[in-house]
């Protein structure tokens, strides 16, 4: 396994929300990628958006602007 780093992880209620996130980030050239929800956040399945901590403000602003609803926004080792 690769060495873990502290990342920003956004979780969602539905897969549709995660897809909306991925699409919006791609369109606006905001870096990051879809990963399975880390165990540290929640057991079970589901998709989350993993990004650099430094991009937090930009991501939160974009989500607010495009109406993408998160479940939670975490900082955790991924």
């Amino acid at each position, binding site marked *: 396994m690769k060495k873990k780093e502290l990342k920003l992880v956004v979780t*969602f*209620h*539905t*897969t*549709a*929300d*995660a*897809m*909306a996130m*991925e*699409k919006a980030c791609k369109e606006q050239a905001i870096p990051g990628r*879809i*990963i*399975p929800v880390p165990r540290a956040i929640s*057991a*079970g*399945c*589901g*998709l989350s958006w993993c990004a650099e901590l430094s991009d937090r403000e930009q991501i939160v602003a974009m989500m607010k602007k495009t*109406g993408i609803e998160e479940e939670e926004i975490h900082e955790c080792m991924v």
Partner: protein
Amino acid sequence: MIYLDNAATTMHKPQCVIDAVTGAMGSMGNAGRGANEASLSASRIIYDTRERLCRLFGGSSPKQVAFTCNSTESLNIAIRGLLLPGDHVITTMLEHNSVLRPLYDMEKQGVALTIVKSDKKGLLDISKIEDAVCNRTRMIVCTNGSNLTGNYVDVEAVGRVAKAHGLLFVVDASQTAGVFPIDVEQMNIDVLCFTGHKGLLGPQGTGGLYVREGVSVRPFKCGGTGVQTYNRSQPKEMPTCLEAGTLNGHGIAGLHAALGYLEETGIDHIRAREQELMWKFYEGVKDIPGVTVYGDFSVKERCPIVTLNIGDYDSGEVSDALLTDYGISTRPGGHCAPLMHEALGTVDQGAVRFSFCHYNTDEEVQTAIRAVRELAQEDE
């Protein structure tokens, strides 16, 4: 074969739809079931299809589009998931059994039902819908277009009645989605039920419903969703709320391509062409002695359907002669619209339905006119 049964299903699909389905069958994983590329590719195309449908129907959010197998499943979800014993619901004689049977079932469970009558041409007086509203009324459910006569229903006017009385408005768009403009906001539609395999030109086994934000539909089924695994209840958020189990990803990939085709071609163009074919056929058959055409042809806007009988011939016999003697596929019988046949007075005879797609040609229409004329002459 000359295929004139497009109101049942459009048989000729754009090549891009066929390519998308076969492509998906070689590359698509299970949507929302993991972050591997195959699964993500399914999730992406399914989400993009929600966006295209939301755009087509003037919705506010792609999340409000849930996928089902067809209109029937969508209507069952809407009707069973919104009505409660003690409620009153209003529908019309124009409806397909996909509306009527769930309503009859709800009637057994204590829902009061009013069915607004149409005239002998299958026309609806919308003021009669308003007359039927009482203090227990919770919902109006009606079709956007009769699958039997092709009469178009002004759902915007019905929507105004629903809004004025604070009622839920559920629309069956089986015959209109992909052909007529639909705007859920402008028409005040709370739940729009559609199928993918007719005017939307997608594969059979695709369909869905658009649910207005804030309208809460009780889930019809629960199960695996790929999210909230340790929650004992079905997630409450749309669209997951109404989607348990693996989606028809391969079919939805086809629907995605079909929606792209519709956006490129333009539904106004498609409707104009289909109506042109319908009117040509209607003009060619309406004055043939012995031919009775059903429905209202006094208005320009109607679904591309012409339904007729020849003398008192069994409609099944006429449809069979059209197939065996001329290679023309039509639909005889009851068309799952029992009350509409009651209104037209055709319960015993049934009727022969000719329904058009923009892929049909003028030559095909001329052949169909000639066939009806020759069969009617045999009757003389």
